[in-house]
């Protein structure tokens, strides 16, 4: 029963603390939804969890002890941007990204995962033909391919149509039901069913930070 937690994290942007003394804890099979208005630090918190941004204070722990290498090996980051090259086909993009994230890079394995996320038919289409929803689903395929324990997804549902959104939510829910962990920065926590909600703006500098039982 692994636990991924952060102790009194704070993040500085420019010369100001956008959030302070924030702690969180997430166990297997759980989804943590980060909410709060834009600019309150949701994305920055996610980037700190992913190790892409150094926190001003505080630390991240896996099963209670600091282990940055382990975290770096088991975190999968999906930001608001879509790291797909429009000229290359879906399979070529995924081959590259999967190779970077340590997943399989042979066509067969990728094709089979693409079938699972419903993009099998388009595997040889250049990405520029795909809609934004289909591109996000391609990235969801990468989530499966990379087999990483902790999924960090930033605003997955914006510019997605209904059908794309359901597909994504189902994908993440299936994953967490099988014991994975997911932290999602979102404006619509109700989409993600029974998930613990952490309002990042509550930890704003100066406001009294109430601990939210994770």
């Amino acid at each position: 029963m692994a636990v991924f937690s952060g102790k009194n994290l704070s993040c500085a942007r420019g010369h100001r603390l956008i959030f302070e003394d924030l702690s969180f804890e997430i166990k297997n099979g759980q989804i943590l939804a980060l909410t709060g208005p834009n600019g309150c630090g949701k994305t920055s918190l996610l980037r700190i969890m992913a190790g892409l941004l150094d926190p001003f204070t505080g630390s991240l722990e896996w099963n209670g002890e600091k282990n940055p290498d382990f975290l770096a090996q088991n975190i999968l980051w999906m930001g608001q941007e879509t790291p797909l090259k429009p000229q290359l086909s879906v399979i070529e993009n995924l081959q590259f990204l999967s190779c970077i994230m340590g997943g399989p890079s042979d066509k067969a394995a990728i094709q089979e995962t693409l079938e699972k996320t419903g993009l099998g038919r388009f595997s040889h289409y250049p990405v520029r033909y795909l809609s934004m929803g289909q591109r996000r689903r391609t990235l969801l395929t990468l989530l499966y391919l990379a087999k990483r324990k902790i999924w960090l997804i930033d605003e997955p549902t914006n510019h997605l149509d209904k059908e794309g959104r359901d597909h994504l939510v189902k994908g993440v829910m299936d994953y967490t039901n099988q014991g994975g962990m997911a932290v999602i920065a979102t404006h619509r926590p109700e989409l993600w069913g029974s998930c613990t909600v952490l309002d990042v703006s509550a930890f704003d500098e100066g406001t009294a930070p109430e601990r939210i039982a994770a």
Partner: protein
Amino acid sequence: MFGYANPKRYQQLSRIILALALVFAVIFLGEGLYLALIASPPDYQQSETVRIMYIHVPAAWLSMFIYASMAVAALTLIIWKHTLAGFYIRAAAPIGAAFTAICLITGSLWGQPTWGTWWVWDARLTSVLILFFLYLGVMALGNAYDNPDKSQQASAWLVLIGSINLPIIKFSVEWWNTLHQPASLTSLSRMANPGIHPDMLVPLLVMAGGFLCLFVVLAILRLNNEILSRKIHVMRLRTIHG
């Protein structure tokens, strides 16, 4: 690295150095100009135009010295993250460029009467011209970013890379000079630095001292500007984000 290192200590220190440098600058330059223009004898070959050398050579020394000092500041910024060093690079670069420009202009004004052309592809002059572009590069990179920390880091790295390249450039220009130099020019360039005559050396050194003090004065003024503008940048961020 919030703010900058020990501001208070820097404040008093800079005020003392500024005053001292200003006083010495006036003394050295006054004495130097007197020596250069009035007291020193004309050169037997170039007659009066040697007086231009009393600015040309110190300016060249200064432009090299300032770039070297920026390289040291770049090292301290990159290794010890000392933000004051980052401000120094932004403060010193324009002064270095100014000295290089003076060196080039006085060089061509000296070239016209002595060599008959406004610009002579002499090895030293060409290296100074390249150094001028290195300075422009540092200044351009310095304010190419909106995030001040990034622009400091980037220009520090450029100064480092430039300082590694400078000796290579100097060597290659000198080698190039031997390759393409028509015979007539070699005799002229020997005349350009005819083994400094002792009573010419004194005004040269005094003027160099004067330029150095002038540099210190300008550097400190510009350094204060950089620190103030960083303070305002922080204030603006704070007022906007509330």
